[in-house]
């Protein structure tokens, strides 16, 4: 298939795999983005790397880092009369502290899967007697879509549309990891996030922490090339931000999308599951748009709950441990019956490990 097969070329991948063996230093590379975790396992990338190159999965699965409180809030909202919850499909099976959206749907709550925030707004337009709440989740990739929708709702004076936001941004959590004890020699930087933000947001990483960064695409040749670029950088004295995914990412990013995001959202301190509160890492609606903020309109704050103490999702999200280190992994905790958040979403590190357990 055009624009796919070129990036899945056997020869190219094998050649890079050979070239990687030029470097024998032990290095740890973190893929921050859940989409990368998924692709790495789907194509069997670890089986193509020399033993001295270790990939660790970072906190880039939005579903995983948002955690139980957000789901509990959404569930509480779904119990309010005349409320329709609209959500991306990933969230529907995520366990909250007592239930999931899927279970609430089977009990009669009006919960609908949408593919975009605009689709949710369309539901609000056509069902004026209902209150439509959109569950806004994701990093800089999905936040502009949510922002455009809020702007449209504002301009059209739609009064039955609301946003429950757990949108987050990437740079603060990357910095938090670097300030933590995590051993990272290089970052495979998110591809889709960077189409919006540009690669400039990572400049502080080599400047301040001397850590290599490569903005990467999602195909096997992208990943292999990036790992090679990182190995080369790590083995040199010159750490910088490089763009491997140059067919989609430029340094300044998508200015229009950034402007819309900045117009609608402002940052707030936000809780990352397993990591804790990170200053200015979450997005909430600005004052001008507060009538759309479900948190303000519907008073459904639930208290935070304790998680299973044996679950090491927090350490996995920080790259300190791998799913294989977890006592619950594959035994008590599986995609069918997830205990920790990393097992829930397709992009979660545990889910990806479970599904594509590296064949060695």
């Amino acid at each position, binding site marked *: 298939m055009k624009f796919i097969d070129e990036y899945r070329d056997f020869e190219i991948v094998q050649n890079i795999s050979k070239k990687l063996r030029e470097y024998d230093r032990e290095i740890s590379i973190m893929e921050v983005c859940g989409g990368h975790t998924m692709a790495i396992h789907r194509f069997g990338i670890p089986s193509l790397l020399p033993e001295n190159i270790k990939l660790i999965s970072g906190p880039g699965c939005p579903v995983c880092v948002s955690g139980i409180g957000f789901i509990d809030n959404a569930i509480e909202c779904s119990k309010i009369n005349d409320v329709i919850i609209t959500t991306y499909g990933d969230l529907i099976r995520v366990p909250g502290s007592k239930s999931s959206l899927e279970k609430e749907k089977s009990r009669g709550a009006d919960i609908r899967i949408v593919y975009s925030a605009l689709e949710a707004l369309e539901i609000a337009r056509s069902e004026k007697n209902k209150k439509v709440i959109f569950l806004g989740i994701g990093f800089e990739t999905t936040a502009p879509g949510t922002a455009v929708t809020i702007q449209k709702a504002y301009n059209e004076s739609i009064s039955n549309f609301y946003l429950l936001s757990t949108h987050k941004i990437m740079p603060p959590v990357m910095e938090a990891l670097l300030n933590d004890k995590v051993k990272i020699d290089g970052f495979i930087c998110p591809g889709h996030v960077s189409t919006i933000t540009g690669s400039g947001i990572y400049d502080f990483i080599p400047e301040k922490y001397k850590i290599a960064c490569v903005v990467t695409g999602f195909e096997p040749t992208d990943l292999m090339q990036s790992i090679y670029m990182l190995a080369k950088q790590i083995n040199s004295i010159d750490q910088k931000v490089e763009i491997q995914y140059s067919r989609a990412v430029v340094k300044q990013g998508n200015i229009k999308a950034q402007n819309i995001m900045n117009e609608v959202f402002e940052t707030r301190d936000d809780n990352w599951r397993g990591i804790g509160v990170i200053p200015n890492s979450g997005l909430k609606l600005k004052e001008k748009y507060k009538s759309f903020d479900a948190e303000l309109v519907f008073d459904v704050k639930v208290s935070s709950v304790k998680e299973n103490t044996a679950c090491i999702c927090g350490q996995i999200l920080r790259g300190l441990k791998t799913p294989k280190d977890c006592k619950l992994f594959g035994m008590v905790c599986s*995609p069918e019956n997830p205990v920790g958040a990393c097992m829930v979403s397709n992009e979660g590190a545990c889910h990806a490990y479970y599904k594509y357990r590296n064949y060695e």
Partner: protein
Amino acid sequence: MNDFITLNHGSGGRASQDLIKNIFIKSFGDNKTVLSDSAILNIPEDRIAFTTDSFVIDPIFFPGGDIGKLAVCGTVNDLAVSGAVPKYITASFILEEGLPVKDLKQIVNSMAEQAKIANVKIVAGDTKVVHKGKCDKIFINTTGIGVFEKDYSYISTGEKVQINDKIIINGFLGDHSVAVLDARNEMDLKSNVESDCACLNELIQNALKADMRIKFMRDVTRGGLATVLNELAEIINYGIELDEKNIPVRESVNGLCEILGFDPLYLANEGKVLMIVNAEDTNNVIKILQKNSLGVESKIIGEIVSDHPKIVVGKTKIGGKRIIDMLQGEQLPRIC
């Protein structure tokens, strides 16, 4: 007759009789059909294959078929992959009040057409009508009986499967899922793919009659190829290795999978059979399958190996290896 199904059509009285005569008997029966409480079948064999399946697909019409065609093919295929020759089918209908009678006619006609193609008789049936909103347009249950010309009971159990046996699939994967997705029209994506929904009994019998050593068969429906192979791996205690570059998937199906994040190995099919065949017979089986229009794209896609027992491993197109696990959760609800 009315243009729409009413509760009266399920009453058991005059309207029910009219419906049976004008629609079901007209399509399924012959002039000599006498309505009685059960069909009397003449089955000389002491061993039969017996199966049942319910169909709730949404939408009821889709590119390449409808719920009626699916209901016959599904049951015929369940019998055929056991090595049996499908003979008799029953059909039970649950109709929603308000279903257009012309839709019912079209569905019943395509059932009759498939039954003719598969050389099976529809010998008994039932109809119930429920209030509007209590079911979605039409649900169908079919039950089937097939007879064995030889003792093929090992085909269902997989007990003869050995290391080095080859894995064969009779064509492109995922067409049914994508056709149904297209028909739902939820995403403004058009692929022009038709469902592969078809009766496989002739294709399968051709290979069996040629005395090919076919050791295991399954129709690859919900859960896709990955799920069937995992079920097999669980039974046989050997490993399974797939060569992903040889797995036939249409470009348009692949494209849609890329956009939506699906893996074609997990998509549903309604006209695909997976065969495990003795290595020496593999090329002959492929030749026999390719002579039938439902097997033109038949391919060898993998083999049974001694490594990694009970685990299905895929050699990816880039030369990596990954574990192919069973489908977790529901990829697309109401696909059949």
